[in-house]
């Protein structure tokens, strides 16, 4: 009984809290720019509005145009459910669930890209090509980060891997994962979530032709993905397993907020990179994770 209740609570956290994060980022950006900015709950309003709208569909697109975003949303949600929410919200993990976690994210990407290519628009084709090119590098960094956590904790179950801290390599891992977070969630300096210029978009270009409820699902999925990476980053770095449950919960909330505000500050103070320079930054993120792995592997022995 408690486990069902806990499951529903965890589901509610992911579904209901995720759309708040983009609101926080936008507030930070507005604050730095000296503007009032949109209300914190803007994304909730947008989702409600989009949900009531009808779907405009290209005559050329197959049902995958709708199915893609739906599957991607489910994949992200399931991946999120594998993440523990601190010690109080331990996930029902199993041995090796971390691999499923990574592949679920890949499935989500595949489905978004597939749906994007359905309309045959040049913009969406370009956006998809860019998304997948970046993914090659960011997935490598993510894999390495997870590997380093596995070595550090001696486990391949997310619950256990994230309970301990990342050890001496925590700073490196944090830097690497934060960069991956920016790239995976199409934030500055990799992408500009505010731009209306199709030619410069990555993620936005892929969803240009979506409308109504499918667009709402895509936007909600994107906010969940942002929260997923923020939680992953916080738990990878903080030794939540060694804290009092209440302390750990507050530490997690604080860390996720700090990451979100950090994203807002980066976006406020940094110009976006040119495309040809972005791989350099992602490679750097990968190297951070590699060194974190080396420290986890050899550092303890030394």
């Amino acid at each position: 009984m408690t486990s069902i209740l806990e499951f529903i609570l965890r589901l509610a956290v992911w579904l209901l809290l995720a759309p708040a994060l983009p609101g926080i980022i936008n507030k930070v950006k507005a604050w730095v720019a000296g503007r009032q900015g949109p209300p914190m709950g803007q994304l909730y309003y947008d989702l409600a509005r989009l949900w009531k709208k009808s779907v405009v569909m290209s005559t050329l697109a197959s049902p995958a145009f709708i199915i893609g975003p739906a599957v991607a949303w489910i994949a992200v949600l399931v991946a999120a459910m594998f993440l523990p929410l601190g010690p109080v919200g331990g996930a029902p993990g199993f041995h090796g669930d971390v691999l499923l976690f990574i592949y679920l994210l890949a499935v989500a990407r595949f489905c978004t890209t597939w749906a994007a290519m359905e309309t045959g628009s040049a913009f969406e084709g370009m956006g998809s090509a860019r998304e997948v090119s970046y993914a090659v590098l960011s997935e490598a960094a993510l894999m390495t980060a997870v590997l380093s956590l596995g070595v550090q904790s001696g486990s391949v179950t997310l619950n256990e891997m994230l309970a301990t801290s990342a050890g001496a390599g925590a700073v490196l891992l944090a830097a690497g994962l934060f960069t991956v977070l920016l790239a995976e969630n199409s934030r500055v300096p990799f992408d500009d979530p505010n731009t209306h210029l199709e030619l410069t978009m990555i993620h936005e270009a892929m969803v240009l032709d979506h409308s109504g409820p499918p667009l709402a699902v895509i936007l909600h999925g994107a906010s969940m993905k942002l929260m997923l990476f923020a939680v992953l980053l916080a738990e990878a770095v903080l030794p939540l397993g060694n804290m009092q449950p209440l302390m750990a919960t507050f530490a997690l909330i604080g860390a996720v907020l700090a990451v979100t505000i950090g994203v807002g500050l980066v976006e406020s103070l940094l110009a976006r990179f040119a495309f040809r320079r972005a791989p350099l930054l992602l490679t750097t993120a990968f190297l951070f994770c590699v060194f974190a792995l080396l420290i986890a592997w050899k550092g303890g022995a030394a």
Partner: protein
Amino acid sequence: MSRSSPFALLGNATSISWIEVPEWPAAELVRRTGAELDRGARLCAWFGVPDGDGTRLVAVIAFDADNTLAVARSTPTNGAYPSLTVTHPQAHLFEREVWEQHALTPVGHPWLKPVRKTAGDAPANGDFFRVDGGEIHEVAVGPVHAGIIEPGHFRFQCAGEEVLHLEIALGYQHRGIEHALTGGPHRVTANQMEAVSGDATIGHATAHAAVMEALAGTEAPLRAQWLRAIALELERLANHTGDLGALANDVAFLPTASACGKIRGDFLNLTALLCGNRFGRTLVRPGGCRHDLEPARLARLSEQLNVALRDVERACAWLWDAASVRARFENTGTVFTQQASDLGMVGPVARACGLVRDVRYDHPSGWYRLAQTPVAVWPDGDVFARARVRWLEVQRSGEFLQQQLAAAVDGGIREELPASAPDMLAVALVEGWRGEICHVALTDASGRFRRYKIVDPSFHNWIGLTLALRGQAISDFPVCNKSFSLSYCGFDL
């Protein structure tokens, strides 16, 4: 140098009797115009004037170093003439326009297609240049864009992210302004001139007023000229500030983007303080200005100007200090000096390629004969250079305004304009914020307009944008486009 020119010489904002304009067969006009361009002249306008069964070609060229303009015309011509574009690419769009308007074919023109003629509800775009190959993909952008901007169609030929070729098709806002002027000036003419390109209201209105005054053989009162100069520089400040902010926005650099959007409004409000309209509508009229600047408002304007200039200085300092912005601006969208010169580019865009050309300096008229401002030049030809020239001009226009506001002249601001002289040709160049605005008017026997030609700086510069994109990443198009910041409606007329 211009002394020995076979062309008829005249100064900026002056007129010449139509009969005194030298007349040669079309082929000879092309040859001689080419020879003058080779000697360093620049093509300001090239258009047709219907005459009997045929069309006379008229060439207006500028000798920048000699502060002189020159005109010549052809005998009435039909059918075809040898293209000037073959040897002098700066004539390419002018010849396409003449071909479209008067059915005179420039033989040998490499890319003869409509400029703004409509077919049905949309412009007749003609065929686009295509690159073949399995790896090549074509991207079509517009005419409806995502932002609140004007309509235009952009066709990219790309290999992956790299742009091999860009072709721009405009004409979506063709309103027939030049055509409407034939037989004018009409009651609405002054208002129409302000709407040629709404963000350059003062520039176009001043050029039109100068043409009218030249045709009437008079000049606006000195105080009106002073007011026009102040309004023109305020227009430059507002638009350059807005563009610097928009450039920052295009690379997602928020601090400058947010601040400049607000400061642009401050400068526009100064124009509103001057005449009641943020874009300077109804201020400039042939014969003078309609609104005076009394001492009390002058003091307020000075005070608010200083505040806005201080703000813009701070906002732009963030832009220049950010390494991430510099990385995006430098070596992006480079136009080489030779290209800019061959294509006859004008304005800040040309000055960013190291070309020293500024009507305020080369062909001063109005108040600029009495008060000058240095020409802002930057050598590199990339987005950074174009941003930098805008910033230099913001500073210099600011200084100019501060000095001139303190040097007001007394007197009236408007005089009744005598009737235009018959059979006269008048030329006026004004350095608008985008560059050289050229208005040419030819009167008939009764002093009405027989032909009125408007050349917006965008007409010279759009081709520069296509060259800037060669070999660039397609994702850099928006920032390149913004760095040119050209007018669609000024081109479409």
